[in-house]
């Protein structure tokens, strides 16, 4: 893997090139915050790019910011998961490929809140960008194992009571700050269903009952669109295990529909299409 300093220098170089050669108006990247951790930032000139950094604290998914500058020509740093998020957004017509200059680099993984390599990164299968205009050469993180999938398989083998106990314990931690929603590049609805008063889909009280509905619906809205970047999990202030539901959902989408989000430009999201011979689990047949 490339040393972080070399990677940052190369990213700066490519960013400057994107400003001069491609005429981008701004670059979405990271810079050091006041607390010394890297934060998402927008750079408006090649001079400002000097402040650009990338390190293993850069866990925010930058595709989230790409929406806000839809009318501008934007440069963006992208490793595997961010580029996959961009592909999903491009496929959904949210972004314009001509307006994007993607600076790809191999990802070395980012840290979670506990200071360890994040579970999304230790399970990552796609560290290299899918779409890119520039690329920093090198190899990224490579995982032989998939710990999240193992966790999912482990929970699947438990009884209903144990599954529910685990789920209820995680959900009771949630304070419904919606940091998961804000950090997610796929949550771009103008009005989220939880912010609607009429009908009141979800009561405001952050109890386990309402939290369950919120998190299950979030998973449902992400079905076939989530790239498992783990930004929601890293943003969660209460350390709710959001990845385990996401990993289950992604596993089923892959098994049933043979689809993983964000791997090909021009794909339709899994729930936006169908096959007449899709697996049927209707009444009388055994479900999984």
């Amino acid at each position, binding site marked *: 893997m490339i040393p972080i300093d070399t990677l940052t220098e190369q990213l700066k170089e490519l960013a400057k090139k994107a400003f001069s050669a491609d005429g981008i108006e701004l670059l979405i990247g990271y810079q050091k915050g006041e607390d010394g951790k890297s934060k998402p930032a927008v750079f408006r000139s090649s001079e400002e790019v000097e402040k650009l950094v990338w390190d293993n604290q850069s866990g925010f998914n930058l595709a989230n910011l790409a929406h806000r500058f839809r009318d501008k020509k934007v440069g963006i740093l992208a490793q595997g998961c961010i580029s996959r998020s961009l592909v999903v957004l491009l496929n959904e017509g949210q972004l314009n490929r001509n307006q994007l200059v993607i600076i790809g680099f191999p990802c070395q993984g980012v840290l979670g809140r506990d200071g360890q390599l994040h579970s999304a990164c230790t399970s990552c299968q796609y560290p290299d960008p899918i779409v890119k205009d520039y690329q920093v050469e090198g190899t990224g993180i490579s995982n032989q194992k998939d710990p999240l999938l193992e966790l*999912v398989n482990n*929970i*699947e083998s438990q009884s*209903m*009571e*144990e*599954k*529910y*106990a*685990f*789920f*209820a314990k995680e959900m009771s931690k949630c304070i419904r700050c919606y940091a998961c929603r804000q950090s997610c590049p796929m949550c771009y609805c103008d009005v989220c*269903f939880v912010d609607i008063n009429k009908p009141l*889909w979800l009561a405001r009280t952050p*109890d*386990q*009952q*309402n939290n*369950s*509905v919120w998190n*299950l*619906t979030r*998973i*449902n809205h992400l*079905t*076939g669109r989530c790239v498992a970047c783990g930004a929601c999990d890293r943003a969660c202030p209460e350390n709710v295990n959001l990845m385990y*539901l996401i990993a*289950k*959902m992604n596993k*089923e*989408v892959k098994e*049933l*529909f043979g689809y993983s989000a964000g791997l090909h430009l021009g794909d339709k999201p*899994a*729930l936006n299409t*169908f*096959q*007449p011979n*899709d*697996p*049927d*689990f*209707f*009444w*009388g047949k055994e*479900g*999984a």
Partner: protein
Amino acid sequence: MDEFEPKVIGFLCNWCSYAGADLAGVSRFQYPPNVRIIRVPCSGRMNPLFILKALQSGADAVLVSGCHPGDCHYQTGNYYTRRRLEIFSLVLQFAGIPKERVTLAWVSASEGAQFAALIKEVVEKVKPLGPNQSFSRDFTELEAYAHDSN
């Protein structure tokens, strides 16, 4: 004490299953009175949030029923529903909500007898599970909390 009678919310598509339920009534097929029917324009109208909302509001089971695949009045609505609800119900089961609580079934307008049999089966399967408490508040805990904060 009387036997537990589950509340079942049935989301039936206007064109097939609702007519199937109507046919069951007209043909005087007996089925348990536990089901409360909500008519939806198409099974493709089913937002999984409706299911959660029903379960949260005290339903013990939810039934979603539409035209057979290929017979949708709007050609493709039920195909989308099938994909959507398949993943959704698997995630629900993963979270520890028994699969008997959410059923998807295809019932056409001519299948009155099948509709009656479907309701019977759903009710029979949900009865042994008892009341749905997956999304209900734990009042003892809340009371303890209220007591503590006083």
